[in-house]
């Protein structure tokens, strides 16, 4: 059986940040990721991040990813790629499949789960046709693999993912035929919708996709207006000529590992649904298991990195690696930076939802 002090599952922004903090504290860290490359979503985030200087604002996600990997290398953190964590037993033993063939059990004093989230779908007749995909999948294709999924794209959903990916599809050379949004108001930041709109992409609020059609792949779609009770209004249908439909309808935390391990769940609709309960130190109801990033409630890469730091610090501190005073200083700094990101008209709701998780009295 392989042994380590802190095992971090998932090498995205949250997991990388957690691994770095735990390793800086002095713990022996193993970082595993099911993908062939580390970095999670960072390497497809070619846009400049928001926040302030202390959050690396103005720096592109890809460059933040490169920086974090460099730091991990300097700290000699052991990284296993193509390593899927498939189960947690006895609260500390993690079953990992390496390279899709070798079964390994890692006994870890602390486990930090940073498994991320998966895209939600929207179902309509024709949604199984090739050419219908998650917005995140399209973003992976264009920014990681440099493959344009199509040239005439319809985006479903106007949250930040929908509008950022629309913009990046335009950058990649596609035309975005329109963005449909079932709600009466657009969801994403105004600055993101504005740059898509000034590229002449129309937004259709209170609209949805009624159906998509095509022989071997998407060749077109019918859009319909919705009334104030979200019901399609007959007679308002119109067709659009598209070869790709991207769905940006939110994300759901990837909670399976944590729940299979026995972590207590809590429901937080604003942050993606069922998540493992955690306290302010990012510790779950199982004292050896911590969380960071989207699994603890869907937010964004900037917040995931701060939560990762908090989880890494807490895990190392619980093993006696960081002095109480250093721990409190660094933890409170990360907490403060996180609070800054969870302010304003978009952030306050997330801050309240997070506070409700942490404040929840467990039965």
């Amino acid at each position, binding site marked *: 059986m392989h042994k380590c002090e802190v095992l971090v599952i998932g090498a995205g922004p949250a997991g990388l940040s957690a691994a770095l903090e735990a390793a800086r504290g002095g713990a022996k860290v193993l970082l595993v990721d099911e993908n062939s490359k580390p970095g999670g979503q960072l390497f497809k985030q070619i846009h400049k991040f928001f926040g*302030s*200087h202390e959050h690396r604002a*103005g720096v592109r996600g890809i460059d933040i990813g490169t920086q974090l990997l460099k730091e991990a290398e300097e700290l000699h953190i052991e990284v296993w790629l193509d390593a899927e964590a498939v189960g947690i037993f006895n609260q500390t033993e993690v079953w990992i499949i390496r390279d899709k063939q070798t079964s390994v059990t890692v006994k870890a004093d602390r486990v930090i789960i940073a498994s991320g989230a998966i895209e939600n779908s929207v179902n309509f007749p024709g949604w199984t046709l090739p050419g219908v995909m998650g917005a995140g999948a399209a973003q992976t294709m264009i920014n990681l693999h440099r493959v344009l999924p199509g040239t005439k794209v319809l985006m479903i959903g*106007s949250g930040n993912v929908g509008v950022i990916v629309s913009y990046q599809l335009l950058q990649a050379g596609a035309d975005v035929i329109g963005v449909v949004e079932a709600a009466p108001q657009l969801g994403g930041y105004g*600055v993101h919708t504005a740059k898509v709109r*000034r590229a002449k992409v129309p*937004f259709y*609020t209170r609209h949805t996709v009624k159906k998509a059609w095509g022989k071997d792949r998407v060749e077109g779609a019918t859009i319909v207006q919705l009334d104030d009770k979200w019901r399609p209004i007959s007679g308002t249908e119109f067709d659009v000529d598209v070869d790709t439909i991207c769905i940006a309808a939110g994300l759901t935390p990837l909670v399976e590992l944590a729940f299979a391990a026995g972590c207590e769940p809590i429901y937080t609709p604003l942050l993606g649904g069922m998540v493992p309960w955690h306290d302010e130190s990012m510790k779950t109801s199982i004292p050896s298991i911590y969380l960071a990033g989207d699994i603890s409630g869907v937010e964004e890469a900037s917040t995931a990195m701060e939560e990762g730091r908090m989880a890494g610090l807490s895990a190392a501190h619980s093993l006696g690696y960081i002095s109480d005073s250093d721990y409190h200083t660094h933890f409170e700094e990360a907490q403060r930076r996180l609070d800054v*990101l969870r302010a*304003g008209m978009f952030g306050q709701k997330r801050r309240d939802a997070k506070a409700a998780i942490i404040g929840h009295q467990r039965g």
Partner: protein
Amino acid sequence: MKDVDIYDQPLKVTGAVSMVELHNSPCYTLPPTDRRALAAVIECVEEIPCNPCETACPTGAITIGKDITTIPVVDLAKCTGCSLCVAACPGMAIYLKKYEFVENEAYIAFPFEYLPLPKDGDTVRLVDRLGNYVCDGTVLRVVQAKRNDRTTVMHVSYPNEYYERVVSMERLSKA
């Protein structure tokens, strides 16, 4: 929705900020027509946690403050038109403008992240906030400074009768 009334619709419906919303926001300080210097114009009307514009400004002309969700405000007296904020803004929501660059010609410098790029002297098709064509413009300079981290800043002149309406240009086709 007809194009004639869509200009009055709000940001959260069209995706583009309306003139009413802009004029009601403290961020929007279009340099007056008698001003002879290039100055930053910010179109950032929502409280989002972001302040690279303030950090980038070498003269302290942009103020956000400690609470980084506060809407940025430009002090035109301090702005030198250096364009650092134009590339620094992650929302691509800042451009520079001046009413009279030469007689009857206004000047705009805006961020641009599409390829291919035009060349100095080229004629480009300038657009408004809804992406509709407004007028032709002449490319003065295409700036790709290293410090701008792959955000091109396009400097363009155009008829100043469209001073306020123009914000960007159409993408160029690959052909």
